[in-house]
């Protein structure tokens, strides 16, 4: 397994390089530039071509694209992502890290929630397969899956942030001006702010998890060893939890690998709706603002997470079912 793992890791480097190259090319091919804002037709005197060229010279944006890419690569290997081209001109690493901390916490809470709800629901559906309640649950989950996140979030806001049931905050991750006396108070405040966005994120994916868990457990329930265990008089609950779930959880576990990039990348819709300064929002802002260094850093982050996700999927696959043979 070690050799296999090393081989997989070695393959990651050229893949990541390819990702950065494609991102670099695509971001530069997009029309407009980081300073096109200074050509704003709605704001009077626009920059002349000469002035624009002077700015680009200062920032090295006038060099050839291969040269710019190599310079970026040179800094990247030293883990230096440069400074943002946005108005704040802050180091990209600090900006990305700041947003990453926000996103990862929120997305992790969502993942816990989606697995916490999805897996038991899936097991329940498998155990009651074909029943009216199971069909009803399946239909409900399908409906939930079909609802766009933005609409789901708006519904949650309408339910829990306004009107009679208004009990949860609407914006941000902390109460402005609140000086928590201790860590517990701070946690409660954070949890109150995070519960709706995390629920919104989780609900959008809970149907998928449930279906995977249901299919896996249902398949396991039809295996001969389950029939044998049942014949030995093993209680149904134990049969489900110990044997069927353990064997049927594999597809659900491997699904985690594909969730990882999403986990790292943040969610534009939810972050926008709930006013959360995470990676999703940073991504869209930096793409629209042609903030090339930030776009590149984010592509490295998400690219790494995607590869790590695939790797993790394979590793988990092996760990959960050791009988799978390595190539």
């Amino acid at each position, binding site marked *: 397994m070690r050799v296999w793992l090393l081989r997989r890791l070695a393959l990651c480097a050229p893949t990541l390089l390819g990702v950065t190259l494609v991102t670099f090319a695509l971001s530069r091919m997009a029309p407009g530039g980081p300073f096109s804002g*200074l050509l704003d037709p*709605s704001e009077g005197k*626009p920059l002349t071509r000469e002035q624009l060229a002077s*700015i680009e010279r200062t920032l090295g944006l006038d060099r050839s694209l291969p040269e710019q890419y190599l310079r970026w690569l040179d800094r990247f290997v030293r883990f230096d992502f440069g400074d943002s081209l946005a*108005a704040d001109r802050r180091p990209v690493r600090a900006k990305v890290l700041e947003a990453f901390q926000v996103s990862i916490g929120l997305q992790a809470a969502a993942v816990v929630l989606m697995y916490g709800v999805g897996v038991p629901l899936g097991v329940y559906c498998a155990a009651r397969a074909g029943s009216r309640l199971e069909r009803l649950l399946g239909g409900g989950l399908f409906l939930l899956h079909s609802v766009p996140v933005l609409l789901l979030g708006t519904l949650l806001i309408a339910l829990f942030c306004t009107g009679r049931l*208004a009990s949860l905050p*609407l914006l941000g991750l902390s109460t402005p001006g609140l000086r928590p006396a201790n860590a517990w108070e701070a946690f409660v405040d954070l949890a109150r702010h995070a519960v709706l966005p995390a629920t919104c994120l989780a609900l959008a994916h809970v149907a998928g998890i449930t279906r995977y868990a249901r299919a896996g457990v249902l398949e396991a329930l039809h295996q001969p060893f389950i029939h044998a265990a049942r014949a030995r008089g093993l209680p149904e609950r134990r049969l489900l939890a110990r044997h069927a779930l353990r064997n049927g959880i594999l597809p659900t576990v491997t699904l985690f690998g594909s969730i990882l990039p999403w986990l790292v990348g943040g969610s534009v819709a939810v972050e926008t709706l709930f006013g959360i300064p995470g990676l999703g929002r940073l991504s869209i802002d930096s793409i629209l603002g042609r903030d090339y260094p930030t776009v590149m850093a984010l592509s490295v982050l998400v690219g790494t997470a995607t590869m790590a996700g695939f790797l993790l999927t394979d590793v988990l696959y092996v760990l959960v079912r050791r009988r799978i043979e390595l190539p």
Partner: protein
Amino acid sequence: MNMRAAIGSAAAIGAFVLLGVAPGCGEEGTGASTDPGATSQSAAALARTLHSNAFSEAGRRSLRGGSDEPPRDGGTMVQCITTDFGTLNNITRETANEETVCRTYLFPPLLDLEPDTLELVPLVAAARPEISPDRRRYTFTLRPGILWQRRTPAEPPVEVTTEDVLFSWRMISDPAVVKAARARLALGVVESVEAIDRYRFVVVTSRPYFRTELEFGFNFRLMPAHRCTREPAAFDQDPLGRAPIGYGPYALEEWKAGQYLAFVRNPDWFAADRLPYRFERLRIHVKCEIDQVPALFERGELLIGALNDCGRYEEMKRDPAWHQIATFHEYYLPLWLYVAWNQLQPQFADARVRRALTMLFPRELVRDQAYHGHAFVISGPWAVTAKEYDLTVAPLPFDPVAAKALLDEAGWIDGDGDGVRDRDGRPFRFVLKYVKTRAPAFTLGTVWFQEQLRRAGIEMELRPMEFLQLKDELRDHRFDAAMLAWGADPRDDDVYDRFHSEAIAEGSNYGSYRSEECDRLLAEFRAEFDEARRESIAHAIHRRLAEDQPWTFLFNPRSLVIVSTKLRNVKLHTLGARWFDWWCAE
């Protein structure tokens, strides 16, 4: 950022561009202005109401006086905006909202605009500048005793002096300060700044220009020389950008990245007699969705907010429950929408065709149905509240029959019977480019316009696109037609850069409009220092452009604002809802 955007933003609300541009709601009275037969007398009456911004009966009724109660200091003013702040470095700031915060709360300008008369009044300057007879030298005197904010009370007080002025000028004029490009542009006519003593300095300009006092007085950006890095290359990354030290009515207390900015009242605020700013704290939430304004307002998390959905605004106005918590205010923004025609394309080179196209745009329908009557149909390139706008020039009416006749006259007829007009074998087809926004003129207006064109035998493709992409295409004249918004100055707006033939190569004359008469008038306008004469030249320009239709002038929308009933002394000014003397009853 220039004066134009600055005042536009100041006008929006409490000196803020709250949640983007609210396509305001024109009342019944606005319809009168579009009557082609409007007399100069009715135009004058309309001008009076427009200029006083008191045309809204609903708004006037909803104003809450505070005369019977003594003003109360304290409380927190809460606002929200759709964008985020990158920096509060007064010199390298870029967006309209950064500008508003810097200019209004942290670094007030040398000269301010009186919110009703729009006259220049001294603020950081002790008086208006002395101007040399050749109108090239402006001597400003700083008001003594203005103190930079201190991080701790133990810090010795530091006064705002000409050292700060010279330092700031050095940073603004140095090309190494990349992000100061906007500041440099706004002061393009300034050649040098020289100190006379601790409080007096002279601004020397390259040529006489009627806007110099306004532009320098309102646009010059100060930063503390004693706290900033002196290295130009490092200036736009100075940490002061995220932890600014100003001298305005508020000081930054907390910057919660991506969430909100909290400010606390500056005890050393020097102009509290005129601009009291009674709220102890100010909080601005960033990156809010405009749709969330009603919800936030209902929860009491906002005290003032702007809406862009006219229909929703009207619904709220009709709901008695909303009147318990909010008052409703409407006023014209110094902003207007237009379609630019690229006259390098053969189909748009003929003024008759451009006039026909304007007559096919159902502007009245869009105003009444999409804006719920909350926009003013315009005929020229100024904000409708500006004195330069000639209210006697009626907009071209929506008239498909007359438009078709004009197109026939220009030689665009359907020769091959395929339903599309053509001339010299070239069919009349074009692409309308615009930035995707939710303003009614862009969502519904474009589609209704397309339908009218189709009926008249013209094919128009709609192509919404990204903001930066459209900017590049405009600069390079790579478009047929483009629909845009212009943030205008409420006073002294110089349109030279938009319509003079010199501005085709390096300016905002994207449509390549050329007119000798207009060039002459535009040059006369910017050389004229007498306000009355300049106004009359502006009216002549207006008439010329209304005749030539280089752009189809569409609407001047109104801002729709809701204000909490907890607030007192709420009033509208010509510049909109500015809350410097409002106070909170609870």
